[in-house]
Each structure stands twice: as structure tokens, then as C-alpha cells.
């Protein structure tokens, strides 16, 4: 489906609104992950508002595309995007992580039965997506819908991820498309210090995948990559999406301290005082008003 300039403008505004929701949720809850959700806001927006075949009014539509979120800890962006797309009321976002909420600290199907999977423990999402693509092939449905797996870069430390990569390559799963949030950070620091992943693209190629790379904040480039992935017939495709953790809030960008820390709870060296963090983040997002791309790149 063509991505027009008008549509891109719309997506930018939507991504900005989703980022504001993420900051508001985290400020309210005072626990949860910040950097990953902000970094993935553009990709989630692109998928839920342009790419995915889904119907927020018919969540269990059998023919829908499947989106498997493997790294469940970035669920603030998942929940915020679903709410903005009409899956549930926006007001419910403030219940994140609170007792009795559907918005569990990590996604759980028992509370949101329309989710394709529960997640949190890393390294198990890609293999579930592989299972879905295998089932589609048995049923002759691998030409009519796509199975998308959203993965983190850090979870490539897990052996299970590589087991899934091998099996997908072996079976040439053409309707499987993996998107890696390549933001280069994990809890203990930069990925290349904790456990080097590079050359990541070459590794996937060696496992018989089609490999694409794109900026995770460039709607046009990401969209083109997904369209190419959809056209590849003989292999699964991975899109290594280069993202900026904390994208949209200057003092959070590219800083692994914000991986698992929400705004407003701790004073950290080089960061704004805790009582100012939420206000500064929201003010920055509000004043940018959808101009994130042009002002930062």
C-alpha cells in the first residue's frame, strides 16, 4: 500500500501522541521501561496505522496478520499503540502495572486474550512466530497473510533465538518477517560490550535469511523494507531497524540508563532532576508536534 506524504504526516503526529502516552503512563506508574518503548514508537505506529491487516473492532478476525512481540518489556509502546488504534480506551493506559489491570507489567494473554502471545522472558518470540508460519504453510495460508515478529537486539544473546533462526531458514518461511529493534543497548550497557552481535546482518544471511536494514524512524524507508520483505518468496526476511533508544526526548536518547528506568523516580548524574524529568519530556514532545523526524535527522 502506497505511503503518501499526507499519510506520513499523519503517522508522525500519531507517533508523537503515542510517545506522550508512554511518558504519561510511566510517570503515573513510576516503574517500567522507557528507552525501548520510545525508540519503537515509530515502528509500532507504522504497523498499526498502515501495514498490519487487522481490525480493532474484530480482534479475533481469523485472517488477520499476526504480530508477535518477543521482548515484552517494551509493552508501554504496545499498549499505547493499541489504545490509540482503538483496541481499548485510552484512559485505561493509566492502569499500567497496577493491581487488577489488563495492562500487566509484561503482556499476558489471560488478561488480553487477543494478544498472539504472552511475553517477557527473552528469546522465545521468534520461535513462536516460526511455529505460526509453519502452521500457515501446512494450511496453505502462507500466501495470504504475514507473521511479523518484533525482537530486541539484546535477546540475540539467547540460544533459543538462534534455534528459531536456523529452523526458519531451513523451512524457507516466506511469510515470516522479523523486525529487530537495533538500538544497541541492553540492561548492562551497550550490546557490543555486553555480547557483541555484529556482524548481525551477515549472521542472518549465513542462516539463509533475506536481510534488510532501515532507519526505524524513517517511515518511508521502513515501509519500503516491509514491502520488499513481503515480496521475497523463497526465504524469511529480517529487517534490522536502526533505532534510537529514548527517541523523541533529548536527555533520554542513546542512553542505556533509561532502559529500565521511568521518568520521575531517580536523580542520575547528567540528567535533569527527577521532579523535572516528566515535565521536560512531555514539553519536548508537545512542542515538536510531529516534527521529530525533521528536527532530529
Amino acid at each position, binding site marked *: 500500500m502506497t505511503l503518501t506524504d499526507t499519510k506520513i504526516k499523519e503517522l508522525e503526529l500519531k507517533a508523537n501522541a503515542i510517545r506522550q502516552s508512554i511518558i504519561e503512563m510511566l510517570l503515573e506508574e513510576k516503574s517500567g521501561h522507557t528507552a525501548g518503548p520510545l525508540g519503537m514508537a515509530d515502528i509500532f505506529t507504522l504497523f498499526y496505522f498502515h501495514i498490519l491487516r487487522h481490525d480493532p473492532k474484530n480482534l479475533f478476525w481469523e485472517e488477520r496478520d499476526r504480530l508477535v512481540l518477543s521482548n515484552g518489556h517494551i509493552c508501554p509502546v504496545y499498549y499505547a499503540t493499541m489504545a490509540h488504534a482503538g483496541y481499548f480506551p485510552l484512559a485505561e493506559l493509566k492502569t499500567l502495572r497496577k493491581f487488577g489491570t489488563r495492562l500487566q507489567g509484561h503482556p499476558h494473554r489471560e488478561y488480553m486474550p487477543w494478544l498472539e502471545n504472552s511475553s517477557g522472558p527473552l528469546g522465545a518470540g521468534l*520461535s*513462536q512466530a516460526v511455529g505460526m508460519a*509453519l502452521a500457515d504453510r501446512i494450511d496453505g495460508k502462507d500466501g495470504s497473510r504475514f507473521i511479523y515478529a518484533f525482537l530486541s537486539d539484546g535477546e540475540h544473546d539467547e540460544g533459543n533465538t538462534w534455534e528459531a533462526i536456523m*529452523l526458519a531458514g531451513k523451512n524457507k518461511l516466506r511469510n515470516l518477517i522479523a523486525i529487530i529493534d537495533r538500538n544497541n543497548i541492553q540492561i548492562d550497557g551497550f550490546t557490543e560490550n555486553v555480547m557483541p552481535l555484529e556482524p548481525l546482518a551477515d549472521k542472518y544471511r549465513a542462516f539463509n535469511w533475506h536481510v534488510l536494514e532501515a532507519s526505524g524512524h524513517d517511515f518511508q524507508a521502513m515501509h519500503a523494507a516491509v514491502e520488499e520483505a513481503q515480496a521475497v518468496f523463497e526465504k524469511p526476511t529480517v529487517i534490522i531497524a536502526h533505532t534510537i533508544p529514548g527517541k523523541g526526548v533529548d536527555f533520554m536518547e542513546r542512553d542505556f540508563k533509561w532502559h529500565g528506568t521511568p521518568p520521575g523516580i531517580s536523580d542520575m548524574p547528567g540528567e535533569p532532576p527527577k521532579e523535572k524529568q516528566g515535565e521536560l519530556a512531555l514539553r519536548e514532545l508537545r512542542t515538536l508536534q510531529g516534527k521529530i523526524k525533521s528536527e532530529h535527522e
Partner: protein
Amino acid sequence: MLNPKLKLNPKLFSEPEQVPIRKGFGQGLLAAGEADPQVVGLCADLTESTQMNLFAEKFPERFIEVGVAEQNLVTVASGMAAMGKIPFVSSYAMFSPGRNWEQIRTTIAYNDRPVKIVGSHGGISVGPDGGTHQALEDLALMRVLPNMDVISPCDAIEAKKATMTIAKTNKPSYLRLLREKTPIITTEETPYEIGKAEIYWLPEVGLAEVGIIATGGLLYRALLVAKELEQEGIKIKVMNLSTIKPIDSETIVALAKETGAIITVEEHQVMGGMGSAVAEVLAQGSPVPVEFIGIQDKFGQSGTPEELIEHYGMGKDAIKEAVKKVMKRK
């Protein structure tokens, strides 16, 4: 005497046929696959020894070979179940659920996907392969998971019925199999229901004074003990507890109330296994003395099944001793 209502093997005490319990699974999976096209099989490089080969040969398009990768085995199966498939995954119990427990917890039990985890080569009777390959903890690992049914058949015929039944339950399930040949105890006519424990041996007249609850192939030894002790005038009831979860509390409590003394018999660590599950029921429903036959907090070693079962205190003599001990504790 053998419970006449259950139509058990009439040759049970005169050289019964010996068949590995895993064979029953292989036949059951083939039958389940014939009955329902949604049944799929996944294996981690142990297709023949877990007896999934019958299914794989008949339905190659519904069989997925994942290689030696047990974590992938169960997570891929979870994804297939999400699309409406009924996946059976097989490996040795030591590797699945031994190696991939967290993946089973999160993507199958927590996710509530109807994947059927088949752990072949359970127990000490795996034999010469030694301790690394003898799963003595699998029942414990599986019964602590919410949503998970846990089944440990006593012979190949019951394993076949269990396989065909769990293909229809729409629930996560664990099915434990043994490697070695064991005597055929039941017949095709013996009733089978998940969650229902049955009394296989009972006194000809009067009440029993000891209840033996057994699971898996060791049920045969428990039945031999009951028959032999009958000659000494000891009245025993023997229960086949093949569904460990959901546990049949009612039948267990009734047995404890009748006998006032219980022995549990399993090829598994006594901590956390079937005996523990029974003790949990009895502590609340009818506290009576219990003796636990099983592995006593040790790892196994190489040997023949017979040598190992005797050495680790699960043979006939050990069961008889436990009967006498528990009667004194009444």
C-alpha cells in the same frame, strides 16, 4: 484379586506380554493424527526412539523436525497451537521438560496453548545410558505449572488411550513415557478417563488394611506385591494413579479412609512427585501414615532396569517392607 469390573489383562500374573510404554504413544499419535487433521508432531532428533516415526511416516507434511533444540521444540509448538494446531512434541524427558522448562511455563502454560509435551525415557529404568538420561524430576517440574495436566500411564495400552484423549482436551498436557518393555496390565476394554484413579486390586472380601498408590510401570510390581501378601493374609488395595494432575482427590481420600495407611510407588524423586501430590491431598482430606517408594534424593547410574529399580529401593521387597512398616504406624 484383580478388579473384575476393569477388564484387566487376564494373563497379568502368567507371563504377560511386555511392550514399551512409548510404543503405545506412537500408536496413539498415529490414531489421533488419523482422527484429526489439526494434529501435528514435532521432534528434536529423537523421532524413532520416542516412537513419533509412525506419525512422521504417515503424515510427513504435518511433522516438523527441529533438530537437537528442545527450547525451540516447545516454543515453535506454542506458535503452531496459536494457529489452531494440536502439537505433540517429543524428546527424552530429561531434555523436555528438563532443559526447556521456562519456555514451557511461559509459552505453553502461561500462554494457555494446548501443546502436548511427551517426555519419553522417564525414570531410572532408562538403564545403561546412566544418570544424565534418567528423568527423575519431570513429574514435579510439570505438576507445579498452572493449566498443565500431568499423565503417567502404566502400560502401552493406557499410553495409547491417554495420547488419543489428550489430543481432544484443548489444554497443555504432559505425558510421561518409559523406555523399557513393561508388562501389559490393561486391555483395550479397560476404562480410561483423565483425572480418574482406578482400584486395580482389591480384597475378595472385607475392607483393605493398606492402600498402595502407584503410577507408571511400577504399578505391575505393586500388583505382584498385593497378590503375594494376600497369601500372608494382608488385605491390600492397589490404585493406578495415572493422572497426577488434575488429581482424583475423592478416590484417594476414600482409599485412605478405608485403609488408614498408604504407600506411594513411582520411578521419580520422592520429593515433589506423585507421592508428594498424594500427601498434599491426604494432609487436607484424611491424614494417615504414608510411606514413599521412589528415588530418595539421589541421581541414578548405569545398570539394567532391574538392577537399578532394586538398588534404589523400588523393587518388590522394598514395597513389601513399606507395607509392613506403614501398618505398624497405624
